[in-house]
């Protein structure tokens, strides 16, 4: 059976197509070349005047695992926000924010209804990975995957402190990817989560962990090297130290230097771009950060834009969330130390446009978007739900594409914050082609999903079709059609067919000998068996809905 999508205007950066009108043919869930005249076209859809892009990919969104479920339990009142039709803050539009803690079903539905066909859980604690996969398995419509968190786990810190060679680290990293069915590795506040358990309250890049006497720099160097050596496509995903602290841009700049030319992805960089200028000792360092990204081709970043309204911040960074809990709104938080593996902090936040700090955070995020030159190295995220729920992406896209809309919003902000931002002088407007890069082609390339994020022959037929409108928020909030693996699943912005996506993993080669030492470690220090820590592929596929796709990785280069 062949489906033909006729006369659509394609924005397909991977294949260099910028608004080219072209037909697409689908068979067996994949895009195929134009069939011969003898082959039967079963279904033909006319897309004249419509914009066609590959399904969007959210490369950083907290969709599965303990933290969000804690948020759901702590904040039952948030479920009411589903009913809100008016935005909470006066500068926002209807798609701006609202539901920060959707159920897994709603998560899948809301993503596909915006034309997103994949989302990645960026902070999968290895010890909690089974829960993350259970939740992702119950998330319909979209493909998913997770980045396993390392760098605060005692096994790794012991290896590093004992001066074990890079091969030992690499084997452990690879083993973790297999055992947790992950596609990438993340570090959160390198060493800081562990240090907090020893009552350290802050850990700078070159500060020693009080027990292990290793620094965050040592941790980042070791793990970024491991990811590179193993040939993992996804660069090490780094949540820098000192999240949210005024003056933290210096830590971020030093972290970029510490990468030493190896690929590194800095996540929710907005939260790490703060200076200390001005009367309130809080300022934008977006220009410095953007300049550093522009200069360092090995560095990529996602923004973690904040938008105004009620949300909840769910982070592995227990050390910094302990400090942020003072600003909780409503006033409650959950902080956990977890299994000699990591930790978490769940703190509700209400970002207000008349609050100086919040208003400046909003501006800093946009300044970064507009000041980083290469759209292949900057990604559109709100760090769902930490900056805002992912449902606000259409609003964010309009802010990037529409200068006057952006400036009107800016003019309504806290006046002191306006005075501290150069946002109005940034006249750039993102093009549809650039939006397609930062939400489709870029994330697919970054994560190593070779057959996604583009519309070339052989690609998986994840396709979003939008009615072209000057109001980009309206346009991106309601696709005319979405195809998932070739099936029409969304029509006029509503799900018409429920499907279940796949889970992407990376499975690099490694020396299984590493398990001998791990087994001893588990038996001596853990409270579970090594065999039960490992997640079998059948756990994800056994219900007949899920399946695992092992993403092809780069060959080992050294």
């Amino acid at each position, binding site marked *: 059976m062949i489906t033909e999508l006729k006369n659509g205007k394609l924005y397909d950066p991977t294949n260099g197509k910028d608004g080219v009108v072209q037909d697409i043919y689908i068979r067996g869930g994949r895009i195929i070349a134009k069939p011969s005249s003898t082959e039967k076209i079963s279904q033909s859809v006319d897309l004249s005047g419509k914009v066609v892009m590959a399904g969007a990919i959210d490369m950083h969104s907290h969709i599965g695992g303990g933290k969000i479920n804690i948020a*759901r*339990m702590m904040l039952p009142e948030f479920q009411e926000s589903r009913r809100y039709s008016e935005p909470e803050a006066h500068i926002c539009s209807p798609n701006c924010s609202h539901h920060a803690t959707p*159920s897994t079903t709603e998560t899948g539905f809301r993503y596909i209804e915006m034309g997103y066909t994949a989302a990645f859980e960026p902070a999968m604690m290895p010890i909690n990975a089974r829960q993350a996969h259970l939740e992702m398995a119950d998330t319909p419509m979209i493909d998913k995957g997770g980045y396993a968190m390392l760098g605060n786990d005692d096994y790794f810190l012991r290896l590093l402190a004992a001066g074990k060679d890079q091969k030992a680290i690499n084997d452990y990293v690879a083993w973790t990817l297999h055992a947790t069915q992950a596609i990438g590795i993340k570090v959160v506040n390198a060493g800081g989560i562990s240090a907090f358990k020893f009552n350290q309250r802050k850990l700078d890049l070159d500060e020693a962990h009080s027990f292990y006497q290793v620094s965050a720099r040592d941790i980042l160097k070791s793990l970024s090297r491991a990811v590179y050596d193993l040939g993992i496509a996804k660069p090490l995903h780094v949540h820098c130290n000192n999240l949210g602290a005024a003056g933290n841009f210096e830590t971020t700049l030093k972290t970029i230097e510490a990468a030493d030319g190896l690929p590194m992805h800095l996540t929710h960089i907005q939260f790490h771009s703060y200076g200390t200028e001005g009367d309130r000792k809080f300022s934008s360092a977006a220009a410095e950060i953007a300049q550093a990204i522009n200069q360092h081709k090995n560095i990529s970043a996602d923004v973690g834009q904040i938008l105004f309204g009620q949300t909840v911040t769910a982070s592995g960074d227990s050390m910094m969330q302990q400090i942020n809990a003072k600003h909780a709104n409503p006033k409650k938080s959950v902080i956990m130390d977890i299994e000699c593996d990591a930790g978490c902090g*769940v703190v509700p936040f209400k970002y207000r446009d008349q609050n100086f700090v919040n208003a400046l955070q909003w501006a800093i995020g946009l300044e970064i978007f507009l000041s980083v030159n290469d759209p292949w190295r900057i990604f559109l995220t709100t760090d769902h739900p930490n900056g805002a729920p992912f449902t606000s992406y259409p609003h964010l896209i309009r802010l990037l594409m529409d200068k006057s809309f952006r400036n009107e919003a800016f003019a309504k902000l806290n006046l002191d914050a306006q005075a501290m931002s150069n946002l109005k002088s940034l006249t750039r407007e993102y093009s549809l082609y650039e939006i397609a890069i930062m939400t489709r082609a870029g994330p697919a390339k970054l994560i190593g999903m070779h057959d996604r994020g583009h519309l070339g022959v052989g690609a998986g037929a994840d396709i979003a079709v939008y009615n072209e409108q000057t109001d980009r928020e309206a346009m991106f909030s309601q696709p005319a059609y979405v195809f998932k693996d070739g099936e029409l699943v969304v029509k006029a912005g509503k799900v018409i067919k429920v499907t279940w996506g796949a889970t992407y993993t990376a499975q690099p080669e490694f020396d299984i000998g590493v398990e001998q030492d791990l087994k001893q470690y588990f038996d001596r220090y853990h409270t*579970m068996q090594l065999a039960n820590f490992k997640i079998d592929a059948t756990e994800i596929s056994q219900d007949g809905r899920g399946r695992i796709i092992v993403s092809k990785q780069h060959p080992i280069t050294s």
Partner: protein
Amino acid sequence: MWQNPTAMKILDDSVQLISATCPACGLLCDDLLVGNSTPISVKNGCPKSQIFFRQAVSNTSPSMFGVDCDLNAAVKAAGKILLHSSQPLFSGLGTEVQGMRSVMALAETAGATLDHMHSESTVRNTLAMQNSGWQTTTLTEVKNRADLIVAIGTDIVTSHPRFFEKLVWNADNLFNKATPEVIFLAATGNTSAGTSPDGHAPTIVTAETVDLPAIMSALNALAHNKKLDAHEIAGVSVTALIAVLAKIKAAKYAVIVWSVGCLKIPHAELTVQSITQLIATLNENTRVSGLPLNSGDGDSSINNTSAWLSGYPTRNRFNVHQRGGEFSYDTYHFSTQQQLNNCDALLWISTFNAYAPPSSVAPTIVIGHPDMQFTQAPDVFIPVGIPGLDQSGTMFRMDSSVALPLKAMRKQVLPTLSDVLRQIETLLA
């Protein structure tokens, strides 16, 4: 003791010892070795796990009003009850993740109210957490880091037998910590497990459970450096309370354990909240973490599953007629006790233990442990496999951070809860 010969054999004859995960308490120990011979041996087992792994299958037949029937007939009768019900109550919910997934699916079809058998206790923790949050830790952290255990209102081991053996008196730990000190405050039960292997006795502060609200308030006041204008609080000397607080402050990593199931007192919620507030206050300067003990029968599993599938933990309801169907949450009105007066059908589920349903005038369907005994035979009873013994599953530990697979340990003669619920759901569609 094995009565049913087909259910007697552990799965593979060639295997002598099978490593098992035990769902009999919230510690979810997975270091058990169960022997493949009669009588069944259980290595590393506690009294609870011995009973769990050595139980026989006593009854495999479904019944209607106490009269045996085949599974098909029982499923049909259950379907009919739910089809004619507009306000069904699904209670008990003694199951694990896979079972709860099926419960949630059926609840959406039937428009059911959901409540767990232990939620009188669990909800008190949840409400305290929803009111002001909390700061907690997990079992491996306790094992490696804790140098002080403060047990409030509980001896811990009655509900969680291997707690001290596995997590406190362990010989190995990652950070060369000292052997932990143990303090029992208003503990009921048997505190002897708090004596260290080298004979160091725990500190016992005797008080009545009902006085814990006053005692916790006093500790909070002391933690805020307030001077108490009293020599004793509810019979406990202020000096003793100051000493407890000093030990917590001096510890590198103190763990405060409470069991909401033991707080069968008025103001239990406030007691939990004053425990969590004490922890929050002390964490300004030192490290202290809470460890709430769970009540069992899959409470952590079903509340986690419910939360990600519906947005709410239990005491929730799927409203079929609202906006095309959605969940709502009400810890008061959706309790089993309240709903027993209002529901027009009761589905009671208890797969781990043979806990019988509360009596109800509404038509009653019971799905669960084959040993269940009834004072009044329900309309329908369907015995199903026990997760971790008859069938595989996925279970959350008490600390919610770890979920482990449960194994099928013996040949399956009973259907699974999910099988039965799916069949019933087909009849409602």
